[in-house]
């Protein structure tokens, strides 16, 4: 109990960061589930959403800027899929992954060019950037609403996937790409929807994530992106509840490590955890067991 009260600050931050990782991780896990692609550009779409907020909020009032950021991010995710991944649908898996790395490289360089490489101050979003105290810890309201919002969004997503027609199509496509095509499912549409959902959640995640940090830089999407992907693998890639659980575990562990004064190892610890789980259970916590046929 004493451990909890003395580390409350870190645990709260951990839960909050975990929620933000979860929102990004869902984008990774859904895309992987359908295309078997590690979408390396996802972290950079998250970063791009951060910059859009910086630039849009400078000229527009907040109630226009916020929805606009989400909208443009969704559009960006959609365009990236159409331009960089769709032409390679029948190419070997390696090509499409390289294309993802290329997009990531492009987005980072573009951001670098637009900002001249300077870190941009992230605007304070009214209300959610205000301070609040819980017991002995003081934190921003965003810390508290992140996990709640995450759970709401994830529940909505799970309902969408379980109970709607498009959700059923998604499940079918992730099970068997070619057969579902034969059954009349428009896979390009399904894949676009997947990217749109992923980018939407990344945009929300970005609003919440960067509210906790003073600045955005062109590479500030790389590490959260990588960690969210680790969370997705940790929970069993392709599984949405797995990604969420994985993200919360990683967020909390990482911040407790920071609380213990091992900041140098907070990133390394995440990867160590990943390697341990992969070696013990190669498909992650909730992953389905795959059998290879000769």
């Amino acid at each position, binding site marked *: 109990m004493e451990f909890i009260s003395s580390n409350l600050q870190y645990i709260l931050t951990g839960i909050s960061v975990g929620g933000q990782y979860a929102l990004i991780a869902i984008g990774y896990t859904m895309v992987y589930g359908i295309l078997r692609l590690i979408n390396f550009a996802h972290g950079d779409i998250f970063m791009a959403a951060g910059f859009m907020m910086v630039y849009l909020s400078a000229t527009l009032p907040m109630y226009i800027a916020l929805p606009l950021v989400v909208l443009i991010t969704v559009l960006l995710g959609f365009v990236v899929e159409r331009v960089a991944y769709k032409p*390679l649908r029948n190419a070997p898996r390696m090509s499409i992954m390289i294309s993802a*790395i290329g997009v990531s490289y492009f987005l980072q360089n573009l951001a670098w*060019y637009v900002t001249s*490489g300077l870190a941009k101050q992230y605007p304070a979003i009214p209300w959610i950037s205000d301070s609040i105290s819980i017991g002995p810890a003081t934190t921003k309201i965003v810390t508290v609403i992140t996990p709640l919002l995450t759970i709401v969004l994830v529940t909505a997503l799970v309902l969408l996937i379980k109970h709607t027609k498009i959700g059923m199509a998604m499940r079918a496509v992730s099970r068997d790409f070619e057969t579902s095509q034969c059954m009349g499912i428009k896979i390009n549409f399904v894949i676009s929807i997947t990217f749109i959902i992923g980018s939407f959640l990344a945009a929300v995640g970005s609003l919440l994530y960067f509210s906790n940090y003073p600045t955005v830089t062109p590479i500030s999407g*790389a590490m959260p992106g990588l960690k969210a992907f680790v969370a997705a693998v940790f929970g069993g890639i392709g599984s949405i509840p797995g990604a969420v659980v994985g993200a919360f575990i990683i967020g909390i562990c990482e911040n407790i490590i920071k609380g213990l004064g091992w900041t140098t*190892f907070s990133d*390394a610890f995440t990867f160590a955890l990943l390697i341990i789980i992969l070696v013990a259970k190669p498909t992650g916590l909730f992953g389905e067991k795959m059998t290879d046929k000769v």
Partner: protein
Amino acid sequence: MDKLQKRKKLIITAAALAALFIILWVLEQILPANAMLFVVLKKGAIYALVAVSMNLLNGFTGLFSLGQAGFMLIGAYTYAIFTIPLEYHDSVYQYFNGGIIKFTVPVFAALIMAGAAAAIFAYLIGLPVLRLKSDYLAIATLGFAEIIRAFFQWDALGPVTNGSNLLRQYPSFTSVLFPFAVAGVCILLIVLLINSSYGRAFKAIRDDEIAAEAMGINLAKHKQLSFTISSFFAGVGGALLAMYQTTVQANAFKSAMTYEILLIVVIGGLGSVSGSVLSSFLFIAASEWWLRFLDADTYIGAFKVPLLASGFRKVVFSVIIMIVVLFYRNGIMGDKELSAETFGGIRRFLRKRLGRRKEEVTK
């Protein structure tokens, strides 16, 4: 191919290499030492070695590993730690009482040690990780590279690694011949390995693991071998990179570096050594040299050319990369190799084209 032809081919290759070194030597005599060409050649040679070592793993053995930056880091640090002259220890390790390593080794021994250190780490990492498949292997090796990066910045290891501070003052090279010679020898060794029975086993594993196993190839042993050897050369490449940069810091060996090398390998063609070499020179030349003019503000008369500003070079460069990735899926060389025959082919092709044009003219 009969023996005579084989010998002829060998002689041509050797002559071409000798000519290359002579040209480089002559260039060094006539051009100023800080010419952009030498920057490209030095960095290109180093990246060529690292790219070929990554190709051995990804293109020839079919193991999708993303740990290259980590092994380069180990190589770079091993080289730097064991070659910083004793008289500089106090200034380099100023926060750690001059460090605890109180001896130095010659440059060549240090290069081999750099490779060996990376290889030993790779062997240990490979034991658990190589059982994983495709993307899982990629993310696990990427994870190990990040762990290595954190370890080398750890303060408790400061007396050896200088914590998160720079390592500097170790011997480096000035002549472009040095990285060419070292990288050349290493690439030659890799080519010999690929053409040996081990190399054929690697390719068999790449093409079909189960079939390879059925043919009596020990999967675990060969994967481990390929992983360790690839890391050895990545370590040597890291040491060369450290020499080129004259300072080294763990923080620079991010996963972005691995992605860059992977791009080079794929653009050159997975499974083509000469493709990797060619594309690393092209990659470095395009990103560091040929597009340089895009970064400067340019005026034509009073008119300022729009868009040109610091960083625009990289944007254009990444667009070019995307075009190559999308439209030349197999890279420059595919899985073929550059050889005397390729040049013969080009000559025949040109002659045919030009010849036809002449015919059209005469008609």
